[in-house]
């Protein structure tokens, strides 16, 4: 088993996935390192990749005039960074920046999308897992909207 097979196989996003599918994913992987402050993605740019963060921390942020960069979320070790690659026009909705030295597995979105198109069962399997991830993020975002520390009521 090569290094990527092990990393992908052990990642919570792909837990229990069929080995032949894991093999398809591994074929789209490479390693990447981001220095502190380095942008992982720019709002409006093509979402050509997504990342499994292995070490470090990435902020998801947007720029607001008069306020500077406003951080909306942080993605840390063990989590997945990016889902704009799944839906046309495949453009990043926010900036993403490494807050500290960050190591990640980069997944080539075009490579994976092609494999998903070619094998719809594989495509559905990946989609299901991403929907779970998106649902969890949406849930946390909704809780954030509650502003529950506001007046402690």
């Amino acid at each position, binding site marked *: 088993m090569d290094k990527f097979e092990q990393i992908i196989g052990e990642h919570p996003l792909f837990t229990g996935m069929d080995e032949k599918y894991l093999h398809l994913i591994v074929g789209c992987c490479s390693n990447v390192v981001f220095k502190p402050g380095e942008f992982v993605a720019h709002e409006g740019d093509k979402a050509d990749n997504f990342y499994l963060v292995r070490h470090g921390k990435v902020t998801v942020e947007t720029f607001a005039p008069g306020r500077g960069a406003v951080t909306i979320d942080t993605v840390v070790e063990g989590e997945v960074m990016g889902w704009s690659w799944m839906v046309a026009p495949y453009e990043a909705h926010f900036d993403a920046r490494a807050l500290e030295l960050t190591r990640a597995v980069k997944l080539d979105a075009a490579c994976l999308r092609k494999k998903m198109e070619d094998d719809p069962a594989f495509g559905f399997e990946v989609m299901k897992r991403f929907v779970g991830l998106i649902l969890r993020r949406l849930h*946390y975002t909704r809780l954030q909207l509650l502003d*529950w520390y506001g007046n402690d009521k």
Partner: protein
Amino acid sequence: MTSSPNPALTDPRILQELAVAASIPQGEAAAPSMSPLPFRVHTSRQETHDTFTLELSPASGAEKYPFKAGQFNMLYIYGVGEVPISISGDPVFPAMLIHTTRAVGAVTKAMKKLKKGDVVGVRGPFGTAWPVERALGNDVVLVAGGIGLAPLRPALYSILANREEYGSVAVLYGTRTKEDILFRRELEQWRSRLDLEVHATVDRATGSWRGNVGVVTTLIPKAPFDPHNTIAMVCGPEIMMRFTVIELMKRGLEESDIYVSMERNMKCGVGLCGHCQLGPTFICKNGPVYTYKEIKDLFRKREI
């Protein structure tokens, strides 16, 4: 129209309880009472833009004010009113009575203006405590939201005073912005310890914040504890506690191993007036600290 007497004032059992509560001698160990004891303000310190800490010492000169982590006092500002405030000091070294609260109502706003030497009335300590003894031998996770860190701090002091008797200890703290972080310097000191995991997250961040962004529940999936041998203590706004309990249970904690601190309109402090009644329980007396198992049926009821 006829008025019927308050049943509490005719029930011999309750009258007996009231008599006992009112007659407990006020010695070195201040005991719950219906009459406030005078305390002097030793220090008043602003914590964040809307929270502050009062350090009080007994006007009688008594050297100690014993309490258990999680208990609260009724603080009386003469001429203004009385409010329940959790004790945020160290139960292991109770030389000074410490309260941290937010200035939101008439009483707490008046309290914020108190100066060194001013006198406040204190009744207490009241209520149940965090399970620091039950947690011995277990991992511990403390989850605090906003000002909820204040009532949990005494539990952490107790645990740290006896640190080797516990497994891993994690503090997960969420607040609105970095400016709202309570006890910031102390949190940083705790985080520098090798035997303590401290994680903070804020809902919104700009500029220099280098920590996590997101609600406190996002910290739970990765917190270092063994769910089969962990006691969780949760304090914060009720809605935050509700979702925190859900995340803790997803990690495998039992309902009876999760403790929450409830807050209602406590008035008498001894379970007589009924202001803090939550279904069949009086929070001032049977709480404020409950296991989730004890309180879960009341947790989601909209009517109470």
